[in-house]
């Protein structure tokens, strides 16, 4: 029986993943996101544009890199709550690229 959680994609620094991107320079979470986007395109037939991605990460470097790559990103700390996420999401301008 398939679970809905099976549809959550996971990208970690496993041996296979590191071998796939052996010659690449790791830039924040961009390689992970690129791999995810490729899988969604192949298996689900959907093309995901850069500005249609939201990243939640505690590392400010990953956040800044994500924003350079046109994603929406929010730095997470221990004060995070649903009100903060709601405000962030409501402030996303869907028509404009970052």
């Amino acid at each position, binding site marked *: 029986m398939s*679970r*809905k*959680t099976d*549809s*959550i*994609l*996971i*990208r*970690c*620094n*496993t*041996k296979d993943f590191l071998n796939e991107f052996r010659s690449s320079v790791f830039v924040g*979470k961009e390689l*992970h*996101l690129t791999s*995810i*986007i490729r899988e*969604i395109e192949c298996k*689900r037939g*959907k093309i*995901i*544009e850069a500005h*249609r*991605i*939201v*990243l*939640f*990460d*505690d*590392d400010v470097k*990953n956040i800044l890199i994500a924003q350079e790559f046109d994603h*929406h990103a929010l730095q*997470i700390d*221990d004060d*995070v*709550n*649903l*009100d903060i*996420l*709601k405000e962030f*999401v*409501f402030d*996303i301008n*869907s028509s404009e690229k970052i």
Partner: protein
Amino acid sequence: MLNGMILPIPRRKLKFPLLSKKKPIVTTSTPKLIKIRPKQQRTTSPQCSRQMTTSKFVAGQRAKARDIVACLQEKNIQLIAIDFDKTLLEIHTRGRYQGKLDDLLDSFRSTFHYLIDEILQCPHFGQTLHLCIVSFSSQDVLIRQLLEIAFPHS
């Protein structure tokens, strides 16, 4: 006063009868027992009030998470990526967690638990709305198992 004459003040009819001058009767019989009504019990016990407050809180959190997911779709956000250590979890596993999964579940941030639960229930999940966990950790199996026990009803 009328025409310089002081009129007598009419006696008002007494509303209350005069107290009788009879002496009180003292009896040796046992006095009447007066039933004291017990204080009305509360309809809700303190434990019940706490449960109602907790369930109200959970309902409020779920409503907020639902609003977030609805807004993400309105804004045409197609992929939500969540980091693992210190983001999805309150702790850092250093990529080498060896403990019990149930213990790790205690560190699952409730904020993201509510959000992911709503995303999983969204009818567009897996079609126009996708969710991923991105981590520098190498423990992808651990993350998969954690998600399975965190969302057992999905």
